[in-house]
């Protein structure tokens, strides 16, 4: 196991990335090249990714990723909506770890507004960010193992995923796309009984991760399908803009939660798993370790949140935040504020900001431009999957066609996030 010494210098300097391809072009001298279309509708393509692959025998000699099949113009749509209505859109972009884009959009709006967030909202957001990370990694592990033939692991992962969806349902009423984060805080207080159920999940999860590792770690087929496959060096990973687990599997100790703490990540205790091989197996190991670490963070968040019982969960700024529902029956002012925010939205000061958070897939960012009106002038999401998929060609040098499935699965790109 090639772990990187903690505290060692992270990658220094830079280089001319000439051998870092985003497209593989077959050698024209090569004969008997067969061009195959992988996807867009193929069970292993994580949605609708199309890979145009040139094969020489079973060897991949050319690769060109064709994306855009899931392009829905979220960014354009959001320009037509008030900020208040926009919040539902970002979570549909990355539909596997839905809380992150929502979080990053809300943080960007709050940065422009200069809004102070109550600490209970901060900790609740952190709790749900980490649950979303576990959720996303479970889907990654289940589906990517399924694609290379390990079927049972899929049922194990989705068993725990269901527990998570139950937790999401408790707070938001919906199992996916919760729209729980709100400009100013969170939409509703945490319901009774949530902490007990979340604690039960935290007790269950480490055992469950042990079970996944029992199924895979010493499984000869899994080892042969993942070890040394799709290797990406640290230099290539940086040149290709990789972030998150893909970068940490290549030996770069970079996690925004540790390096540029947002929310309250500087107040919780957790480790950042880093592996040095850069292959499919190390990407799997990073994510499995992260599930354990996220469970630790969730437990700490629950401890802190229980102490904050009864505290406000959303900022008390009536020009931005919807008034409490019960006040609408008795207070004319609240009714007016409610009406204004819902119909017109709230104006956000002119400016441009970029906010990046460590999502389950890497750096999820939001660049937001406001002209001072109630609708965003421009929203752009920096999608970690977009960069991850760009690395497919670099990972597939000297790969066999069967490895391609393992590689695409291990990069963990969500096509909604890629195409937006």
């Amino acid at each position: 196991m090639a772990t990187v010494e903690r505290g060692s210098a992270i990658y220094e300097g830079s280089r001319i990335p000439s051998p870092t391809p985003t497209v593989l072009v077959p050698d024209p001298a090569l004969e008997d090249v067969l061009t195959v279309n992988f996807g867009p509708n193929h069970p292993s393509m994580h949605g609708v990714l199309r890979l145009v692959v040139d094969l020489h025998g079973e060897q991949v000699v050319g690769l060109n990723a064709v994306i855009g099949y899931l392009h829905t113009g979220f960014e354009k749509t959001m320009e037509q909506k008030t900020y208040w209505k926009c919040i539902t859109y970002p979570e549909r972009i990355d539909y596997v770890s839905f809380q992150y884009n929502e979080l990053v959009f809300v943080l960007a709006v709050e940065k422009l507004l200069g809004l102070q967030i109550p600490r209970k909202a901060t900790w609740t957001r952190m709790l749900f960010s980490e649950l979303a990370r576990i959720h996303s990694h479970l889907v990654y592990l289940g589906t990517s193992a399924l694609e290379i033939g390990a079927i049972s692991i899929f049922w194990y992962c989705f068993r725990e995923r269901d527990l998570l969806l139950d937790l999401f349902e408790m707070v938001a009423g919906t199992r996916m796309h919760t729209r729980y984060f709100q400009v100013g805080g969170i939409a509703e207080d945490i319901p009774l009984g949530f902490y007990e159920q979340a604690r039960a999940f935290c007790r269950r999860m480490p055992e469950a991760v042990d079970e996944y590792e029992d199924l895979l770690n010493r499984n000869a087929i899994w080892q042969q399908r993942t070890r040394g496959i799709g290797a990406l060096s640290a230099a290539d990973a940086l040149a290709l803009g990789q972030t998150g687990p893909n970068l940490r599997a290549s030996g770069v100790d970079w996690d925004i939660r540790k390096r540029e703490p947002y929310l309250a990540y500087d107040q919780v205790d957790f480790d950042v798993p880093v592996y040095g091989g850069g292959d499919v197996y190390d990407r799997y190991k990073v994510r499995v370790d992260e599930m354990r670490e996220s469970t630790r963070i969730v437990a700490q968040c629950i401890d802190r949140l229980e102490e904050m019982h009864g505290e406000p969960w959303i900022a008390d700024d009536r020009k931005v935040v919807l008034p409490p529902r019960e006040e609408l029956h008795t207070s004319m002012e609240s009714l007016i504020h409610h009406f204004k925010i819902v119909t017109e939205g709230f104006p956000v000061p002119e400016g441009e900001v970029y906010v990046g958070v460590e999502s389950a897939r890497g750096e999820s960012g939001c660049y937001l431009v406001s002209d001072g009106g109630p609708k965003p002038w421009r929203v752009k999401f920096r999608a970690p999957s977009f960069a991850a998929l760009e690395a497919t060609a670099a990972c597939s040098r000297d790969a066999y066609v069967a490895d391609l499935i393992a590689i695409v699965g291990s990069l963990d790109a969500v096509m909604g996030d890629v195409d937006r």
Partner: protein
Amino acid sequence: MSYEGVPGLVETREAFGETTLVVDPARVADACLHLRDELGFNVLVDITATDYLGWGDAGVSGYYATSGGRDINDPMTQGYARLPDARPKRFSLNYHLLRLADDHARVRVQLWLDDGEAVESVVPVWATADWHEREAWDMMGIPFAGHPNLRRLLMDDDWEGHPLRKDYPVGGEPVRFSEAE
């Protein structure tokens, strides 16, 4: 941190705790190479193009109010509290850079471009710029000189127009109704 040696630097701005370097578009490749090799910005996080057509006017992004403020004769509308500052040209192109090191830092390189004004590709500086530049071309129609493969990325190859431009209509795909047949 001093950015004074960056080639083509026009202006350095600090806002919301973020640093923006406005750079002469003709020298962007030099500036990026300098930022990468001299100042250690080894990761290109994102490239975003923004269209400022109609910035500060009424009715472009769904506003119905006058640019001077609220139109009191039209209910349910909202004007600007103040007119936003004028922008030098129609498009801005923003490179978000990250120095991934122990003394980490972030910076935004900003260029201002007219419609159709080509800008030099930074693919030789950061390989990841490939798709980001293709997306900027596809969505906003910004041509990148020297890009190895400047084709549409998200839209079909034969698509007309650049959907994220402000003059591209919402619901812009022409729909033919059966009555018109």
